C-alpha cells in the first residue's frame, strides 16, 4: 500500500503529472473574481470565503479526470485489480494521493489568496481548517466519480455533471464554516458537520467506488 502511494505521488510530481495544475487553476480562478465583481474591498471581503471554497472545489474537480484514466489506459489498473490488495484499499490510496497532491496544496495556498480577496483577519484560520477538513471528502467523492466514468471516452464533462451534486453538502458546510468564521461568529457546528461528512465518505464511499470500478473492469 505504501509502495502504491509512493508510486502515485512520484507520478504526480513528475513533469506532466498534473501536480501544479490544480494549484494554478485555483490561483487563476481567485484572481479572475475581482475582475468579474469589481475591486471594492468590502464587497470582496464578504464573498472571499465562498470564492476560496468554490475555487478549491473546481480545482479538485479539474484534476479528477486523470485520477484513474492514466492507469486505465496503460493497463496498470487491471494489474492493481488482480493484486492481493483489495480494490477498496487501492482506491483509498489513490484518493489519499490525490488529496496530498491537490487538496493539501490548496489548503496551504488558500490564506495567500485570501490576502488578494481582502479576507477578514479572523477568517484565515477558519478557511484553512475548513478546507483541511473538507478537501479529503472532495477527493474521496471524486474518486467515486472517476471510477464511474473511467471506461468512457470523453468522460470529463460527464464526470463533472455527476460529481457536482455530490459535492453540494460538503460545499455548503465548508463554506458556511469559513463564512461564519470570517464574520467572527461561531462556526463550530458546520465544521463538525463537515467533519462528519468527511469521515463518513472516507469510511463508506471506497466500497461504492470499488464496486463501480469492478463493473468497469469486467
Amino acid at each position: 500500500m505504501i509502495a502504491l502511494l509512493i508510486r502515485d505521488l512520484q507520478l504526480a510530481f513528475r513533469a506532466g503529472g498534473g501536480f501544479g495544475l490544480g494549484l494554478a487553476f485555483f490561483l487563476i480562478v481567485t484572481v479572475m473574481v475581482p475582475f468579474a465583481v469589481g475591486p471594492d474591498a468590502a464587497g470582496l471581503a464578504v464573498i472571499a470565503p465562498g470564492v476560496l471554497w468554490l475555487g478549491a472545489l473546481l480545482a479538485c474537480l479539474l484534476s479528477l479526470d486523470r485520477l484513474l484514466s492514466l492507469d486505465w489506459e496503460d493497463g496498470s489498473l487491471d494489474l492493481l485489480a488482480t493484486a492481493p490488495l483489495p480494490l477498496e484499499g487501492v482506491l483509498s490510496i489513490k484518493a489519499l494521493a490525490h488529496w496530498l497532491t491537490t487538496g493539501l496544496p490548496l489548503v496551504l495556498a488558500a490564506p495567500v489568496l485570501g490576502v488578494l480577496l481582502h479576507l477578514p483577519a479572523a477568517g484565515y484560520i477558519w478557511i484553512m481548517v475548513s478546507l483541511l477538513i473538507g478537501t479529503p471528502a472532495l477527493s474521496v467523492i471524486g474518486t467515486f466519480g472517476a471510477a464511474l466514468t473511467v471506461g468512457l471516452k470523453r468522460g470529463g464533462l460527464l464526470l463533472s455533471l455527476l460529481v457536482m451534486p455530490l459535492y453540494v453538502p460538503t460545499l455548503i458546510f465548508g463554506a458556511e464554516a469559513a463564512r461564519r468564521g470570517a464574520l467572527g461568529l461561531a462556526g463550530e457546528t458546520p465544521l463538525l458537520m463537515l467533519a462528519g461528512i468527511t469521515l463518513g465518505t472516507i469510511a463508506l464511499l471506497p466500497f461504492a467506488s470499488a464496486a463501480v470500478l469492478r463493473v468497469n473492469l469486467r
Partner: protein
Amino acid sequence: MSIWEYANPKKFLRSTERVLPPLWLGSAVLITGGLIWGFFFTPDDYRQGATVKIIYLHVPSALMAINAWFMMLVASLIWVIRRHHVSALAARAAAPVGLVMTLIALLTGAIWGQPMWGTWWAWDPRLTSFLVLFLFYLGYIALWQAIDDPDTAADLTSILCLVGSVFAVLSRYAVNFWNQGLHQGASLSLDKEENVADVFAYPLYVCMAGFILLFIVLVLYRTGTEIRARRMSALLARERMSE
C-alpha cells in the same frame, strides 16, 4: 403467483398490455377531472387570490418528483440484489418522468412565487433541494446514455442512484441548515392542525391520484419500450453473428 414473475420480460409485456388501456383512461380522467374541478369550481383564497389554483399542479408534481426517485432507488436495489433486467429498465424509464415532474414543480413554484413572494426564485431549502434533485436526475440520465453495454450501464447507474440518494438526503439537511425557509410547511399532513382547507384539498387529492396513475402508466409503457429496444438489439446482434 409471486411478484417476481413479472421479472420475466415476456410476462411483463403481456400483463402491461392488458392493464395499460384502463390505466391510461384512469389517469386522464383523474387529471382532467381534478384540474377542471380545481380550476373552475374552487373559490379563490382570501390571501393568495386565484394563484391558489396552481397548487393542483405544484403539489402533485412535487410529490411525484420525489417518489419517482424513490421508485428508482427501489428498482436499482432490486437490480443489484436480484439481477432482474426489467427492474433496471424500469429505473431507466422512470428517470425522465421524474425529471419533468421536478421541472414542473420548479416552474410552477417560480411562477407562483413571483406575485406572492415578489421573486421568481429564493434560495430557500425546499427550492434548493429540488434544484439539487434536478441535477441528480440530469446526471443519472446522462450516465445511462453515455454507456453502450446495457448491463454495465444498469450496474453503474444503480450504484449512482444509491450513492446519490444518500447525498440527496444529506443535501436536504445541509440546505436546511444553510438558510431559513420562505416556503410554507407541508400542504397536507395527518398530524397537523392547520392544513389546506377542504375546498382546496379534495380536488388536490384527485390531482395527486391522477399524477400517481400517470407516473405508473408512463413508467410501465416506457419500460415496455425499453424491453423491446433491448430485445431488438439482441436480435440484431445475433443476426450479425450468424452472417
